[in-house]
């Protein structure tokens, strides 16, 4: 059968959601930010809530998320997305409000904002893309950088004696009574993407029911910061990031898993 006979509108089974704009993504080839954006927008589309959803973009590579996500968005000062989202949600309690943040934004400069928004149990969704590095500014060490991992500010590898241990923000916020659902996902394989999308869906459903804060970490790559080819970076992530940041639900229905 000729390809031309298959590629017809009536045979279409998958296409980028209209809630992603046609602007070319500013991300490096293979960067997981694009996939994380797309599945978030697919969830918003499938729930039919695009007119009632407001996103808060961070500072970091995804600072331009508002150019790519075709919904109402704003952009917060570095690390302040949970505080901005808190304000929006309290003024408009019937809107769906989410933040989209990197690990430098959420765990370093915004660590305080994150913990207190989680502890207050704000009815928001936090999507946390953890690539273990400050991607945007040239690959500096983040709180999430692995022991021994090289970055531009830890050129001999992170020495935990002087630089401390990688911060597991997701396990940390799971301890707080304000969080209702806390999970860690990835977007490097088709199955991982499908699971991550289900988790994001669940997070938005929790907001619908006003049950508290839903926190979805996505362990991702930074090919440029890690100085690897995209597919190699994904393999490196599986071998090195996942043992320290294991995938799966950490808190479900307000109860710690295990």
């Amino acid at each position: 059968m000729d390809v031309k006979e298959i590629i017809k509108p009536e045979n279409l089974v998958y296409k980028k959601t209209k809630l992603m704009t046609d602007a070319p993504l500013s991300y490096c080839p293979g960067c997981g930010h694009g996939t994380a954006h797309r599945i978030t927008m697919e969830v918003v589309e499938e729930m039919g809530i695009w007119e009632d959803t407001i996103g808060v973009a961070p500072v970091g590579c995804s600072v331009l998320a508002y150019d790519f996500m075709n919904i109402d968005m704003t952009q917060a000062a570095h690390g302040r997305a949970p505080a901005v989202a808190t304000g929006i949600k309290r003024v408009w309690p019937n809107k769906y409000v989410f933040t989209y943040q990197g690990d430098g934004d959420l765990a370093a400069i915004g660590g305080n904002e994150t913990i207190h928004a989680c502890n207050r149990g704000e009815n928001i969704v936090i999507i946390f893309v953890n690539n273990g590095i400050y991607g945007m500014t040239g690959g500096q060490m983040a709180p999430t950088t692995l022991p021994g991992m090289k970055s531009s500010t830890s050129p001999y590898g992170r020495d935990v004696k002087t630089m401390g241990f990688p911060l597991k923000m997701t396990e940390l916020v799971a301890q707080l009574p304000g969080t209702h659902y806390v999970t860690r996902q990835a977007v490097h394989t088709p199955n991982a993407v499908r699971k991550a999308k289900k988790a994001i869906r669940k997070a938005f459903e929790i907001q619908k029911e006003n049950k508290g804060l839903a926190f979805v970490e996505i362990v991702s790559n930074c090919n440029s910061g890690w100085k690897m080819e995209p597919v190699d970076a994904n393999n490196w992530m599986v071998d090195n990031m996942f043992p320290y940041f294991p995938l799966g639900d950490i808190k479900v229905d307000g109860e710690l898993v295990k």
Partner: protein
Amino acid sequence: MAKIKGAIEVDVEKCKGCGVCIPACPTDVILLAKDVNGKGYHYAYMENPEACIGCVNCAVVCPDGVISVYKVKVA
């Protein structure tokens, strides 16, 4: 049993040649072209179009969302 035939369409000018779609394909349909697009990237294309089963795996992992997937049942 009805057989499934699939095909993908890559938005060549927006593909960044990252290759993430290649290991995601269960039937080894995709390769990167020797040729480059306007941005200098070796874009993805169907090297083995007859093997495509329209499973959408490649489109689901493509960070740039540049793959559309089509599928038909042939009797």
